[in-house]
Every structure is written in C-alpha cells, then in structure tokens.
C-alpha cells in the first residue's frame, strides 16, 4: 500500500533539454512553401489573376486622371447606362390587345397615343418617304413590376417545395445513414453513398437534365434543388443523430423501447434546434439558387431574366435584379428572426 507521496519520479536517462523539442522549422518546411508558391504562381496565370491586376490598375489610374479611359470603366458605365432607367411599366399596342374596352381599363392603366414614324421606300419614286401614324398604346405603369414580383413568388414557391422535398427525402436517409441506428452496414453505406451522390451533382447540371425529362418550367427546378438539398440535409441530419448525447438513449433503450421510439423521444428533441437551423439555411439557399436555375429553363424568375437578357432589354433586367435583391434581403431578415424564435 502506497502511503508517502514523494517528488514526481523522473524517468531515468531522460534529460529535459530544449534540444529534445526539435527545431520549430526544418528545411522541409521551406521546400514545401516554395513548392506551394510555385504552384500558385502557375495557377494564377491560368485564371488570369495577372489580367485582373493590370486591368484594375488601369481602372484606378483612369479614375485619378492618369489615363484617358479604362476597359473596366467603359464596361461598367455601359452596363449602368443600359440598366437605367429600369422598366417598371408594361406597354402594349392596343391593336394587339383583343377586345379592349376603353371604359374599363385594368387598374392604374391608361392609353397613350404616340406618333409612330416609319420610313418606307416608295416603289414608284424610289425615294424614302417618312410616314407618321398615330398609335395607341396601353400603358400599365407597374405592369412589368407586377409580372416580375409574380415570377419572384413562383421562385420562392419553387424554393419552398424544393425544401419540403429535401426534408422528406433526407429524414429516412439520415435514419438509415446514422451509424448507431442503421439496420445494417450495407444500408448505411448505401444511404451515405446516395447522399454524397446527391450532393455531388450541382443543381444547374441536374436541372439541365431534368428539363429534358420533365420539360421547361418549375418542376425541373424544384426537383433539382430538392435533390441537391437532400444531399446536404441527409448528411447533416445523420451526423447529428450520431453525435447526440447517448445517456438518455441508453436510459430509454434499457426500458425495452424500439429504435424508432428512442429516436423520437431521446434523439429528436436534442437535434431539433440544429435541424431547424439546417433546414432554414437550405430554404435560404434554395431561394437564391432558384433565381439562378431558371437560366437553364427550370422556371422562376431566372427564366424571365434570361429571356430579357437575350433580347437586350436591360431595363427589364434591372427590374428583375432589384426584385431579387430586395427579396433575398427581406427573406434573410425573416429567416434570422424565425431561427431565433424556433431555436429556444
């Protein structure tokens, strides 16, 4: 029986010397640093970092009057000119609108008469003649804005359904892919593999193929986003189940409860706050991605954006961009508040 507590014995032959710690850096550190620098240098040329530096320098020197103009400055000012003024109104030729009743125009709308000049070659004189005709145009002052907002709502709906799909798909995948709840190793591997695969395919690429399968429109968009979101949620949900405190699970297991019951009572309450956080993040991300995914024809505001951009109607593009920005900003605020309230 040990009774006395003497000084801590030091192992024989070991000398506490600073040399035993070793040098903080060795020649290998230097070699590795040089290799990394060389690789970055080669890579910088490939992604035109040099071009970025020279053009930015040119733009800055133009700004301070050292140079006449710069490529970047010209590009930016052209964009600014094209985007403004933004187009809020919708103008339609009255002749194109079927049975328009002048007395019962849509809300806020009015009819404008514009002079329409046309140059036409007179076949007899072979001269260009100017003909001026009066044209009546139906103007809906906020028509285009309304249409854009409608498209934005459709985009949010795509994001919402994508999130619902992602949650519905990832809950069973998480259960099967959580090492401590999966029925078998094979199912675990299968589930984790599926989740990785879903996460590996970018939404834009899968949307491209889904458009081929389901046709243009929101269906391809919400499927693409939902599958990708399931890839994320399936992984995060499963990892949270694995990391949950084991003690309450043991307690309920010892009472003879099945896995599903233990999961419901001992795991779900623990992981709920982070599940809500992940899901809100995916919803957030889906709204942003849903605006982009229309570029490949998968519905939403992106499809409208692409159409207007291709027709050089930059005023309309500007309206779309403003609506997207405002929406994302507002949704950010809402989801921050929702998160704070739900995770209490």
């Amino acid at each position, binding site marked *: *029986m040990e009774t006395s507590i003497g000084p801590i014995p030091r192992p024989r032959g070991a000398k506490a010397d600073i040399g035993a710690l070793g040098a903080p850096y060795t020649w290998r550190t230097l070699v590795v640093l040089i290799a990394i620098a060389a690789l970055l240098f080669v890579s910088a040329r490939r992604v035109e970092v040099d071009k970025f530096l020279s053009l930015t320098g040119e733009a800055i020197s133009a700004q301070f009057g050292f140079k006449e103009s710069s490529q970047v400055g010209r590009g930016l000012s052209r964009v600014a000119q094209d985007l403004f003024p933004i187009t809020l109104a919708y103008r339609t030729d009255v002749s194109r609108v079927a049975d328009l009743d002048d007395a019962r125009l849509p809300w806020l709308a009015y009819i404008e008469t514009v002079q329409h000049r046309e140059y036409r070659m007179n076949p007899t004189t072979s001269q260009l003649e100017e003909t001026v005709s009066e044209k009546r145009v139906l103007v809906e002052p906020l028509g285009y804005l309304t249409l854009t907002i409608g498209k934005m709502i459709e985009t949010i709906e795509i994001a919402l359904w994508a999130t619902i799909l992602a949650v519905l798909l990832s809950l069973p995948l998480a259960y099967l892919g959580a090492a401590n709840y999966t029925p078998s190793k094979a199912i675990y591997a299968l589930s984790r593999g599926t989740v990785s695969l879903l996460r590996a395919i970018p939404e834009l690429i899968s949307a491209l193929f889904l458009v081929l399968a389901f046709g243009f429109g929101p269906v391809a968009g919400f499927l693409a986003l939902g599958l990708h979101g399931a890839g994320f949620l399936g992984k995060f949900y499963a990892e949270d189940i694995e990391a949950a*405190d084991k*003690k*309450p699970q*043991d*307690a*309920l*297991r*010892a*009472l*003879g*409860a*099945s896995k*599903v*019951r*233990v999961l*419901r*009572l*001992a795991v779900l*309450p*623990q992981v*709920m*706050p982070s599940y809500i956080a992940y899901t809100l993040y995916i919803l957030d991300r889906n709204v942003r991605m849903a605006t982009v995914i229309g570029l490949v024809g998968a519905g939403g505001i992106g499809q409208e954006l692409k159409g207007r951009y291709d027709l050089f109607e930059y005023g309309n593009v500007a309206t779309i961009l403003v609506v997207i920005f405002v929406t994302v900003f507002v949704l950010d605020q809402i989801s921050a508040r929702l998160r704070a309230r739900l995770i209490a």
Partner: protein
Amino acid sequence: MTSSAQLRGVEGQHHPMLSFHGLTKQYPDGVKALDEVTFSVPRGEFCVILGPSGAGKSTLLKTLNGLAEPSSGKVVFDGEEVSRRTLRRVQKRVATVHQQFNLVERLNVAQNVLSGAIADATLLQVMLQWYPHSFRQKACDLVARVGLEPVHLARRMGELSGGQQQRVGIARAFILDPDVILADEPVASLDPATSRDVLTLLHDAARERGTTVLCSLHQVDMGLSFADRVIAMRRGRIVFDGHPDAITDAELAQIYEGSDEDRRLAA
C-alpha cells in the same frame, strides 16, 4: 396499497425476484468486470451493492436491463432466464435510475416522466407524445410523490438542480410500476444532504409499492443505513453478503483497500 408488483409477488413466492448464477463478464481487453457472481434477491428487498470504482457494480446491474451482455453465467428474472428472446419482456418490468440521471435535456419534467412509459404506449402515442389520460394522471401523481411542485411539470431539465433531476429520474422509473428498480450510483453526483433525501425517497417509494431495488452505492454510511441487505464487491467478486449490521469495519477497510474511496474514508 395493492400494486400489481405485490399481487405478482403473492402468486409466485416459490422463486426469488432476481437471481444471478455464475455471472462473468470479460471485456475484450481481458479485464474481468464480473467473476462468477452468484446471489439472489427476494421480492421487495432493498439490496445495496457496495464496492470501490471498478468493482463491477454497474456491469452487474447492466446485465439485467440489457445494456451489457454477460460473457457466461445467467441472470434469472422472476423465474425466467434473461436472453435475447426474453430481454424486451424483462426490460418492461425493470426500470433504471442512472448516475447521470440520463434525462432528455430538452424535454420538460412531464415529458421525461412519461418517457418511462415509452415501451408500453402505442407507437402513435410515442410519436405524437400524446399519452393516454391514465399515464398523464400517473405522471402528475408521481411528480408530486417525488416532492416536486406542479409548476415544475413544464420546466425543462436544464432549469432544475441535480437533486430535482434525480427526483424526475425516480418518477420516470416508477411510471410503469416495475417489479425491479436498478439504481446505478443514483446519488453519486449529488451533495451529501441531497443524497440522503433522494435515497430516502427511492427507498420509501419502493417500500410502498413492494418494488425490489438493486442499488449500487459508493457512500458506505448511506448504504448501511438504507439497506435491507448489503452485497460488497471487489474486483468483480462478492466479498460480503449479509445484513448491514453484520459487516465489520475491518471487512469494510479490506473492501476499499488501495482504492480512491479508501483515502476518502481515511480522511
């Protein structure tokens, strides 16, 4: 009070509530947590297991509720051998009070007490946490019995003190009127005064219902004052089994010799 436990007790007097036969548990690293442990516990007994850390007390309890599987030997519960096949049935009649309480942090007191009925309620009731009236009534009665106020029902675990949490743990253990309660160091993380209160509660509540209790403890003085019977273990073996008055100081000193508790006892 006539509980189902007592009724069952009257019918089957011929066999003990619990018995362990040559129980051995060897971990993969070669450590023998239990070494040929044999004893039986009659109905309604409050049996305290003493011993230093690592003596095998927890492992012994876990062989009954299925959290540990013995390497050899058998555990017989109410005349029925505990095996994979019978485990579920046994688990429903055995409740455990844990050292770290093992309650669900983010559920409230009522939900935690009701979670004790997890294996008896229907799947839908568990999924929705919507238990029948009888269970809810019982949970309320138990919460009052363990000395908590009705206002505590809706409090989450994080808002309660350790002693209050263990009271919830005890209420959870009693909700299905188990035949046996395993208490694995139920007061190890509580201060001495609270420990005594909580142990008194467990003892009295079990006595009222005729519940058999197998309780591991490392506080010797408390073990001796509450127990109907003391079993002392050291290195996986039983070194004393008998009435608490029968154990001598010399025997106690021998049990705890060289352990951390030994130093604490000496101090």
